[in-house]
């Protein structure tokens, strides 16, 4: 084997990107894994447990993250973004901007002394703003790499030219306020786009009052409430009074399946809400859970069984009907939902202590690639059947939610698919 394979670029360090990188690396291909946030892990890291097995999300994901960090064939570039791509299949020239962490990655040991001393408190995006982090931080304790990052916008030194506490306390002298952005140039054979998704702004569904009523949550916030590493340490309590809710409503298809906001089905929310209702019942055995849905899309392996379990074993109520509006009782901050029970044809109102909106998703793409998109907002594919992950640009593959809303197993399958395609371009015939 004298042929030296070319490297592959994987953009996005969520589960889809991680899996693609690991597959490629295991095949003997050099991989650059670029992640724009300070740590890999993606949205899956924010989940508490996963459906339908109720596997703890962190437990199954962190080993993969560790494996990425440990793999000799993977070069991890976190806090970095792809800013320019030229060339074509087999020969892409890529420019990557490595944003300054203001912390020397070589020296930082992730001890956490700096962020315990940092005086500037900032809403923590990992917990969707429900708790606070410091201006120097690691996004979550299991971060890979476990290196601190200074958030320049909130750092007192950068905004007011004083403080420098972190520099003083750092035992390894890793803080470097003078760090500059760095541009890295790479030549790669192929590119796997695993950039994932963002949640659609829930205030677009104004009738549900997110942002206006304190006890209306979005599903990812609820996920953080459930999590032991979340802002409440795994306690489900209301924003308004820190009390346990006695009943929770889960509303499906918020900003999904709505032609005025986003006509696509987001594929995983139904099962996520079923899971939320089961977990809520596990946390608070006396809580009443009601899921408002239109079609319950329990399509994957074990999903229908999971849905049946929620109904029969956990007594979760399923109400077929799209709620028209939510109003708040001013004194109690309870929420009144108006809906039609389409099985009885009765128009009703019901009061809940907490409402969780299953918000739809939209894809994120690296602008530098200029990927042609379809009408539905997702990337256009060249030949969906014969090559399900190939974009309109030869040598560029998309996987995960960036290639259409999907659940974790389907994302992982696609990652494998893209990995071998990228590998074929990178490695050619081996013998």
């Amino acid at each position, binding site marked *: 084997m004298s042929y030296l394979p070319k490297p592959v670029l994987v953009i996005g360090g969520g589960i889809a990107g991680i899996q693609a990188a690991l597959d490629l690396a295991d095949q003997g291909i050099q991989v650059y894994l670029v992640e724009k946030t300070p740590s890999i892990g993606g949205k899956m890291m924010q989940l508490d447990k996963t459906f339908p097995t109720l596997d703890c999300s962190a437990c199954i994901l962190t080993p993969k993250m560790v494996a990425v960090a440990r793999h000799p064939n993977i070069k991890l570039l976190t806090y970095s973004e792809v800013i320019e791509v030229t060339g074509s299949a087999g020969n892409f020239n890529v420019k990557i901007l490595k944003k300054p962490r203001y912390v020397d990655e070589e020296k930082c040991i992730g001890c956490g002394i700096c962020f315990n001393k940092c005086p500037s408190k900032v809403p923590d995006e990992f917990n969707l703003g429900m708790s606070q982090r410091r201006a120097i931080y690691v996004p979550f304790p299991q971060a890979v790499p476990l290196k601190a990052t200074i958030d320049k916008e909130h750092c007192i030194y950068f905004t007011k030219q004083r403080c420098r506490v972190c520099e003083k306390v750092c035992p390894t002298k890793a803080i470097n306020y003078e760090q500059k952005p760095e541009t890295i140039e790479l030549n790669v054979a192929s590119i796997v786009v695993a950039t994932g998704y963002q949640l659609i702004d829930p205030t677009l569904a104004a*009738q549900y009052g997110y942002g206006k009523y304190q006890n209306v949550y979005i599903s990812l916030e609820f996920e953080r409430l459930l999590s032991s590493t979340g802002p409440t340490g795994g306690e489900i309590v209301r924003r308004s009074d820190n009390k346990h809710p006695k009943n929770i409503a889960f509303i499906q*298809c918020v900003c999904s*399946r*709505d*032609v*005025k906001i986003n006509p696509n089905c987001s594929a995983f929310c139904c099962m996520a809400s079923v899971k939320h209702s089961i977990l809520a019942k596990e946390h608070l055995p006396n809580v009443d859970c009601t899921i408002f849905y*239109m*079609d319950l899309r329990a399509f994957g392996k074990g999903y229908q069984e999971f849905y049946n379990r929620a109904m029969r074993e956990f007594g979760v109520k399923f109400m*077929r*009907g*799209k*709620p*028209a*509006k939510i109003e708040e009782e001013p004194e109690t901050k309870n929420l009144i939902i*108006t*809906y*039609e*029970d*389409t099985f009885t*044809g*009765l*128009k*009703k109102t019901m009061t809940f202590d907490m409402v969780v909106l299953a918000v739809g998703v939209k894809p994120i793409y690296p602008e530098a690639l200029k990927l042609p998109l379809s009408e539905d907002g997702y990337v256009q594919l060249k030949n969906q059947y014969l090559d399900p992950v190939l974009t309109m640009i030869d040598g560029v593959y998309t996987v995960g939610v960036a290639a259409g809303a999907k659940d974790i197993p389907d994302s992982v399958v696609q990652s494998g698919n893209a990995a071998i395609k990228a590998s074929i371009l990178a490695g050619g015939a081996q013998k």
Partner: protein
Amino acid sequence: MTYLVPQHPLQLVELGAERFSRCFNCGNCTAICPITKEKASYPRKLIRYSLLGMEDKILSSTDPWLCYYCGECSDQCPRDANPGSFMMSLRRYLTTKYDWTGFSKLMYYSKKAEVIAIIVVAAIVGSIIYLLHGPIVETRVELETFAPYLTTEIGALTVLFVLAGILLSNLYRMYRFVMRDENGNRIRVPLGFMIRDFIRIVPLHFLTQIKIKECKDRQKNWINHLIIFYGYAASFILFVPLLKFTQTNDPFLFVNPLSILGIFSTIALLYGASIAIYGRVKKTQPMWKDSHSTDWMFLILLLLTTITGILTGIFRTFGFPLPTYIMYSLHLMIAAPFLILEVPFAKWSHLAYRPFALYFESLKERYLASKR
């Protein structure tokens, strides 16, 4: 067993329903509707009945008449299936079904037929005027001489009674369709209740149309509705049963209470019709967003009737004999098709169907209560 008519929903498309077949049955429309009560499940159920072709269910429903098209359902429909326009088309559909003469169907399903019908009626009226008009006095305005009171009044009253007859028979058909239980069996209510409920419901709702106010933000609409309604009612009374006093050779007297009423009623009509036309052109309200050809025809004829009436009055007051006669002839040629065609067969029949729908609904309630 419900008999299915798969073609049914396609008729509604012809009657102006837009995109309603996109409906994925979520119930958002029912939930957002400000006038649905706990038990009444519309528009959703009606859309479902229609799509599945359950025509009997549609025919026996009074719900379409309860909707005043505030448009909330259409605004929030996740599939943009426009339930509001669907409800509107259902009212047109029911109007064609209640009417036994077939004219209604003709007018609603064919723009061409509608225009031809109007032209034919106008031509007939024109020919009658041409053949039967009195002497033309050119020196001063002598309207009563040109159009002798008796001839005009006979014509007007004939039209009035024929129309009333058709409208009543259509209302009876509506009664026959509606008074059925969920299995489609006829239901009867004791006469005493029928009379009591009639007195309780029909006059009030006919005269006030108070139900519109239950709709969201419809105060203005309600007032406009009332303006047109009372303008029309006053004009109708003044110029049909009281024709003797209004169509005289005497000059128009500003002190005559009838003249004053005439002025107010015509101003009201002019105002109401203009607002509605402007609204429909600009599509300022949901209900004005999708206008059927009959809506336009109704408003145009109403406006033209009013304008020609006013012009006749002006010409007469200022003493232009020939223009007065011509304008009056035109007025009659426009008013006749308006009254003959629009009132019993098209748009304006809702004035009768709406209160009667409430009345029949209440009778049905009584029946169901007695069953329980």
